[in-house]
């Protein structure tokens, strides 16, 4: 097999030109959080929804808003509350007095970028309505089905603390998110800069520098990023190691994993790694891309046992051990 790597490389260079612009705009508003910004771009390029987890005040919402502002696109924020209804998200049929007919009133989900803030504050039926729309990329109101706009990306946030009165997302629902990000605190210097910037007279704003079409073109280029069979096997090895750890010399994990990652993990690892390579302006995927993205793809897909919880071993610890053990091609 002979791949025209130079042609791919040239296309990647061309289509990835917007990455610097969008990063620069977002960094006008957001200090640091390069990991979160990069992962949001990966979600955008690989067409995968993202779940952001972190304590309040880490600029999760602000980052998403800045990203949407940098793209000439629609953005909707839905604050999930216990009394939210599915119709509040997807829309409903309303009666038109003038024409004596029912017409569809589209909900806030009909947007390119949707921020589902504190998704675990609403009951299961509301979560299901959102997650079904995420999966199907269409919404049915009354007897009419409406496709969701492209690009369509849901960025959901949840707070790992204050678990009282929340409705944790079931494993099957969490699996629909391509990435689950664990957002951490900024560094000291970053914190200083955040403080200065946010207390200045004029609050910084991001301007639209990218069109949705550029994103769609970039997505096509991401699909063309070459992934070698050796890398594909590496992905499958990592995913299989979550299911059959003993076969990979990880006997100590056998009793710690209740359920390994689903085939969706392999698909998303592949796609996210391609997007990661694209962001590095590379026309092919390397093991570095896989290792870089594996934790975010797998941490919510590996279900640990009670024994692991009792020993205070998290799913992240398990995934880390697997990544560090599986041989790089």
């Amino acid at each position, binding site marked *: 097999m002979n*791949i025209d*790597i130079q042609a791919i490389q040239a296309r990647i260079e061309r289509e990835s030109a917007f990455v610097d612009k969008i990063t620069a705009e977002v960094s006008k508003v957001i200090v640091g959080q390069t990991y979160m910004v990069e992962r949001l771009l990966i979600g955008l390029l690989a067409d995968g929804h993202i779940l952001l987890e972190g304590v309040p005040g880490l600029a999760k919402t602000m980052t998403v808003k800045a990203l949407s502002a940098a793209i000439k696109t629609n953005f909707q924020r839905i604050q999930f509350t216990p009394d939210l209804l599915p119709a509040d998200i997807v829309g409903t049929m309303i009666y038109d007095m003038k024409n004596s007919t029912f017409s569809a009133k589209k909900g806030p989900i009909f947007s390119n970028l949707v921020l589902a803030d504190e998704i675990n504050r609403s009951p299961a039926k509301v979560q299901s309505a959102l997650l079904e729309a995420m999966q199907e990329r269409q919404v049915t109101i009354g007897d009419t089905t409406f496709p969701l706009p492209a690009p369509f990306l849901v960025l959901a946030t949840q707070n790992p603390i204050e678990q009282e009165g929340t409705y944790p997302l079931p494993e099957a629902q969490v699996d629909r998110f391509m990435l689950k990000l664990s957002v951490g605190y900024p560094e000291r210097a970053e914190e200083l800069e955040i403080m200065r910037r946010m207390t200045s007279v004029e609050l910084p704003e991001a301007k639209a520098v990218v069109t949705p079409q550029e994103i769609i073109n970039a997505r096509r280029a991401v699909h063309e990023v070459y992934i*070698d069979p*050796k890398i594909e096997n590496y992905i499958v090895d990592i995913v299989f190691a979550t299911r059959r750890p003993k076969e990979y010399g990880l006997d100590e994990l056998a009793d710690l994993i209740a359920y390994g990652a689903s085939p969706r993990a392999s698909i998303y690892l592949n796609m996210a790694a391609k997007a990661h390579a694209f962001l590095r302006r590379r026309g*092919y995927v*390397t093991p570095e891309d896989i*290792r870089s993205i594996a934790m975010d793809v797998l941490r919510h897909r590996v279900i640990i046992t009670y024994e692991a919880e009792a020993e205070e071993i998290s799913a992240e610890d398990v995934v880390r051990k697997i990544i*560090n*053990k599986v041989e*790089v091609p």
Partner: protein
Amino acid sequence: MRAIRSAAVLILAAMVLAAGPLPAQSGDEGIRVSATATPLQVPQNRTAVVTIRLEWAGDLNRYEILKFDNPLVENLDIIATASSNRVQVIGGVQMARRESQYTVRPDGLGMAYVDGIVIRYTDKTTGQEYRLTTSRLELKVIDPLPEPGSYLWLVLLLAALGAAAVTWVLVRRIRARRAEATRLAREQQQQQISLEEKYSLRLKEEVDLHQPELDVSGSFARLSGVLRRYLAEKYSLPLISATTAQVRGLMREAEADERAIDDTLAILEQADIAKFSGAAPQRSELERVYTILESMLGSTSR
């Protein structure tokens, strides 16, 4: 005073014990009779000996002992009898002794009894006839002892097992010594060649540049594998599961030489392109990185 009294009591007790079993009832002061059984606790499958002893001072013919019957026994069987006469001088006095012994075997567990027997005798000097009665003896019959031959098979089996175990241990030791000797010999042999020499040989085995139809992409993969294994062994680093980008950090942590780090990354980055980009790698590139690795293995010493 008190000490003297205690000593007197002890001496008296000793004298009573030294006198032996109390004599049976006698009409004549000159003759004594005693009945004893040995042992007093007899296992069911063993025998005991009941002894009737008559003793007097003087000549053996001084008294005529009339024949007496065997004693009546309960829970016992008399299986043998014996009698003996003896004369000896004790403390300058001639003593005559006549003994009758009955060997008895128990019938069942529990208590067994030997009834007293009446012994009649005549003092030849006076012609007077007397009679004596021995005391009733009791024996306790206890559980039978194992017969010497009954556990012979068990003893033989244990002996055989013991012998087998000893043989097994010896064989294992001999084998372990041989294996250890072989291992040491192999180690000595390996120590004779350095790590660099070892991996130089492996490189030549894995990548043969003289082959006209060389699989260049596969050769890059094997070459980078040799390099990773060499560095992993040299610096004890987990380089097998590390990406190229991680190798630099790991080698720096291990305080590797900067030039070695640069050479390593030059090889691995080129190998990554060859392995993962899908483009057909050039043979000249393979030869270039081969030379770098060869010089790394040639110039570094352990």
